[in-house]
């Protein structure tokens, strides 16, 4: 806490704010792993982490109230959604998010050796990007529903509906992979 004087001589207590460097060091691992969950590809997650922090630096001027980490997650989510949208357009993505009807478990024989990480990664791909974002933010990153509302720019009801549907779809996919593996 620092104290200072305003122009009128009034003494005020002010909260020290984090520098960009501090924001980066504190959140870069979290953001990277969230993006890795979103896109499922380490190289792309790394690129998107860069994009996120570059955008964050540029967006800071217009921020009226810095609510961390929700603000950062919002930029990361938008960045990931844009990237996924683009990837869908150019249609060479190694996986494709689908809905329940379209989803099918992988054809290849997993031979009971599928690591948990791979099962989670593949299950996540069965979700729509927004469902994936809600589920990761809530379960992996531990954000509250209100924080997810900020991060996703969605209403509480919309977040809840997306989250529950995402959980349900994740369960179906995860269960299918588990059966396949065993």
């Amino acid at each position, binding site marked *: 806490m620092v104290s200072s004087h305003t*122009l009128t001589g009034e003494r005020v207590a002010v909260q020290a704010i984090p520098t960009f460097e501090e924001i980066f060091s504190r959140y870069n691992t979290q953001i990277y792993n969230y993006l890795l969950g979103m896109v499922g590809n380490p190289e792309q997650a790394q690129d998107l982490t860069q994009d996120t922090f570059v955008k964050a630096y540029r967006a800071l001027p217009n921020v009226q109230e810095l609510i961390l980490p929700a603000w950062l997650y919002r930029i990361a989510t938008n960045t990931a959604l844009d990237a996924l949208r683009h990837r869908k357009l150019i249609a060479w993505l190694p996986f494709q998010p689908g809905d329940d009807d379209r989803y099918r478990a992988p054809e290849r024989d997993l031979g009971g050796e599928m690591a948990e990480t791979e099962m989670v990664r593949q299950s996540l791909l069965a979700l729509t990007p927004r469902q994936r974002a809600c589920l990761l933010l*809530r379960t992996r990153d531990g954000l509250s529903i209100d924080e997810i509302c900020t991060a996703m720019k969605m209403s509480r009801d919309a977040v809840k509906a997306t989250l529950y549907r995402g959980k349900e779809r994740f369960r179906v996919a995860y269960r299918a992979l588990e059966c396949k593996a065993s």
Partner: protein
Amino acid sequence: MTCVHVRAQLAAYQEGGLRPSQRRAVALHLASCPACQAELAVYEEGDRALRRFAADTPSAAIYASVLQRLGQEDAARSQRKAHLVRAVSSWLNVAGTLGAAGVVGAVLVVLAQGLHAPAAMSTAAHSGPGGQSQSGAALVHEQQAGPSARNETPAGRNVELAAVFPLASVGTSVRLTATLLQLAERGTLLYLHTSDPTEFGQDNSQAPILQQPLLATGGQPTMLVPTPGIYSSPAVSPDGRWLAYGVHSAVPHSAQRGIWVRDTAGRPPGWRIRVPHDGPSAQIKDIRWAADGRDLIFSVQTHASVTLYVADARTGALQRQYPGWWPADNQALSPDLRLLATVPYEAGPQDAERPITVRDVSSPGGASWQVGIGARPVWSPDSTRLAYLTGPALSAVTLTVVDVYSGRRWALSTVPRAIDAVCWSPDGTAILYTVHEGDRSPAATSQLWITAAGRPNVALPGVRTRWIGDMTWVPSPAPHLPRN
């Protein structure tokens, strides 16, 4: 409640999202249904797996890449600006030949403003902090490539610059205050000091040059030039290595008069540049270093005239000169030596509202345009913005900043007293100025204030002095300055 109903609500149940009555009903069913319990267990297992998922450590190179990208974007923006000014200048040359310079010039300048800031003029004067964002963020990184960074390793430089939060980006006043203090913490101030302000500015005033951290928490300032003398306008080179200052014409021995340049590490003896018009009535004013750290910009003011010079800091060889308007602080050459800001003198009070004109002096017949109404322009370190004072009288002065390329203006602060000694922070994100308490009486003191993109201004408690004349905010950390 059937299994189908329960399973449709299991996700919400597990998240605690059901109404109490629904929750009780689901719990009741679960207690007696192993199949639904197994479904719930899959949810819980999935959650555990998700929490363990993606716990990688990202590459350490991401941070450097982020900084590099920011730097590249800013460099590209600066190049676009410089290119546009050159284009405007060359078009004006052509137009001048055709006898239509005025009309074409006006069109091109308007065009230039429009290209850089589509809403420039409509948002002028009182834009909030957000409006200044781009330049604030940009400057930190433009500074990376500047001369002041020459002595730093690339890695060290990146860390240092990233730590300087872009002040203009700060949206709320509380955080602005904290950030200004953070920035000030990194700064060192060099200033002229006199114990008797009634004598300040007179030819015989004794004004030693002192050095003090901006946020000193105690102790005495260091006397940087050990012999008290009659000095003016201390200025430290962009790399923090050299201090230039004027030695007043009233010094009895003419061999001492001129601009002295010395090593800030204190290694004697330094050297002297003789200035033109070195007569008893001449005063050396407003010494500044060019951005390349090679040339010095200064004015010589006599009772009758003012001339602005550019001279080689080492040899003293004159490079350019511009006849100016009295008093000397009504013209200023940008650190990149491209733009000359002038406030033509007319009869009336010194700070009366007069047009400030900027002229591109990098080529003959360069563009000229008006950027504001006011007096005493001071260039930002990156040569894109001017700080100046406006106000009907000395008693209510507004410190204003204008982006000379886009025409956007920000009224930073209005003070019910005279503002003096305006200087930019080395990274161009904040401005320091003094407000004098008491009007040049022996009891008068100077109070330092710092401001960026709006209120509040912050009074710096560290520097306590009787009267500050000229001052300069040294790049920090200043590697060569002696420590207190």
